[in-house]
């Protein structure tokens, strides 16, 4: 059941004539935790909703286990996209009680694990008699997490699952995610803005920027290729002459350049013999370097 991949080919999406997703092709391989990161409005939720047939693509195709996802129940049965709940959404049934929402999930997800759902509810201390409209942002996130994990779907997608959760609950969520992943080998796609905390959990990372797929890569390999090189401006510029510089900060005569190496390349090759410091970047830092403001910080500001 868990050896199913999810792919999209040349997917584009237009809203009112404006292209919000542009020619995205990717394959979600089975048994992996993917992190989907991108700035606000980059198209993360749109991409996820197209992958799960909740939103029709303007162009392109999406398949799950080789079958088209659109209006295909057998393909959709392998997928759970637990969307962010919004209590003020005019279209959402915010008058539902949590238990009613979970009951609905139990009917529609074919592999629903009621006992696991009960354990998760107890873990988070959720009051299932409360109406969705009365829940805090953190509790809404907990409900979406319960649905996602208890769905036991081969491909489980969580959109901003930790939004509004306190640090203890966030830690608990990541623990639960890893426990469940270890136990079942399911595929998870987690979109988040809190990258630093989740970086260790993501085996692979998908970066979307302005509707385009920037990369889909093994997290450890990706992080190992990004460095910050600091020193005198001329020295940094000389060292970076043959490197891909994503971003740079200038402070007085000092400069820090955020660079990307080619696979197999070594940073020593560029800084040896120069008075420069080089250190690796965290996933968050490299994301900012790749997708941050095009104008280098410190220049023209």
């Amino acid at each position, binding site marked *: 059941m868990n050896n199913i991949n999810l792919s999209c080919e040349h997917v584009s999406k237009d809203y009112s004539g404006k292209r919000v997703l542009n020619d995205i092709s990717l394959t979600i391989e089975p048994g992996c935790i993917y992190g989907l990161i991108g700035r606000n409005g980059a198209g993360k939720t749109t991409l996820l*909703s197209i992958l*799960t*047939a*909740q*939103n*029709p693509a303007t162009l392109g195709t999406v398949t799950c286990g080789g079958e088209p996802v659109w*209006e*295909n*129940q*057998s393909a*959709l*049965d392998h*997928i*759970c*996209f637990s*969307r962010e709940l919004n209590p003020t*959404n*005019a*279209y*959402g*049934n915010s008058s539902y009680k949590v238990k009613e*929402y979970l009951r*609905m*999930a139990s*009917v*529609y*997800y*074919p592999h629903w694990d009621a006992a696991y759902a009960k354990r998760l509810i107890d873990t988070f201390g959720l009051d299932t008699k409360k109406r969705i409209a009365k829940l805090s942002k953190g509790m809404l996130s907990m409900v979406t997490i319960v649905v996602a994990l208890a769905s036991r779907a081969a491909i489980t997608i969580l959109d901003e699952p930790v939004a509004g959760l306190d640090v203890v609950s966030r830690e608990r969520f990541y623990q639960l995610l890893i426990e469940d992943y270890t136990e079942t080998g399911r595929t998870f796609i987690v979109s988040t803005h809190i990258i630093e905390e989740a970086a260790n959990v993501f085996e692979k990372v998908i970066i979307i920027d302005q509707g385009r797929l920037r990369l889909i890569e093994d997290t450890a390999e990706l992080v190992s290729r990004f460095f910050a090189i600091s020193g005198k401006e001329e020295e940094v510029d000389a060292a970076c002459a043959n490197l891909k510089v994503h971003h740079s900060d200038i402070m007085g005569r000092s400069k820090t350049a955020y660079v990307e190496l080619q696979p197999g390349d070594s940073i020593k090759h560029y800084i040896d013999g120069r008075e420069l410091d080089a250190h690796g970047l965290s996933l968050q830092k490299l994301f900012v370097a790749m997708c941050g403001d095009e104008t280098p910080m410190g220049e023209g500001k």
Partner: protein
Amino acid sequence: MKQGILRNLRYQGRNQLQMVGLTIVTILLLAVFSAFTAPIDRIGQVVIAGFAAYVPTACVLWGVTPSLSFYTVIAPYLLSMGSTRKSVFWVNQIYKVGFALFSGVVFYLVNMVGGEYSVFTGFSASFTLFATIIFLSSIGEVAGALSYRVGKWGMIFYIAALVMVCLVVGVAFGLSAASGGEMANMMFEFADAMKAFPITLFALGGIVGGALFSVACWLIVRRVAIK
């Protein structure tokens, strides 16, 4: 597809059963209320005669009103949980017809049991209620689907358009009748000719209209995006 239909039958069926329960409770409450307000010596007669109003009122209330919110409130959740648009739509159609059938049968039985005190008797009144519920529910579905797909102004424009059509037709008939001209004569002739048609023919027209609105609803819903 089959699994999707079964899940929807299960979930939407539970909701529909609630509507059936609420309909029965509403009919009973209306009957009790009229019993309290009727003269003591004519309680039975008043209550039985009142069923002519209670049953259609309750059936339209619980059969038609929820159709407005189905595509704005319930369907998006069902779709977000992996159901297909086709199965959500078709099962909703099945339950719509089922509820209309339930309403017609209840109305028929109540009128039959009421015997001489019943305002309506026979098949045509029940069939008309059946057709009315299908027609109004289908109009409501389109309103809800439009509201979800293009926003509340879509629904407001649609309802306003329906009201305008009714107004124009009504005013045209009224003015022509009042003016007593050739047009009015034609209308009276038309009305006379219509008397020859059984009421079931009008009811059938309602069912055909309902089917057309359902087709319109499917065209709106078949590629709807979950918000």
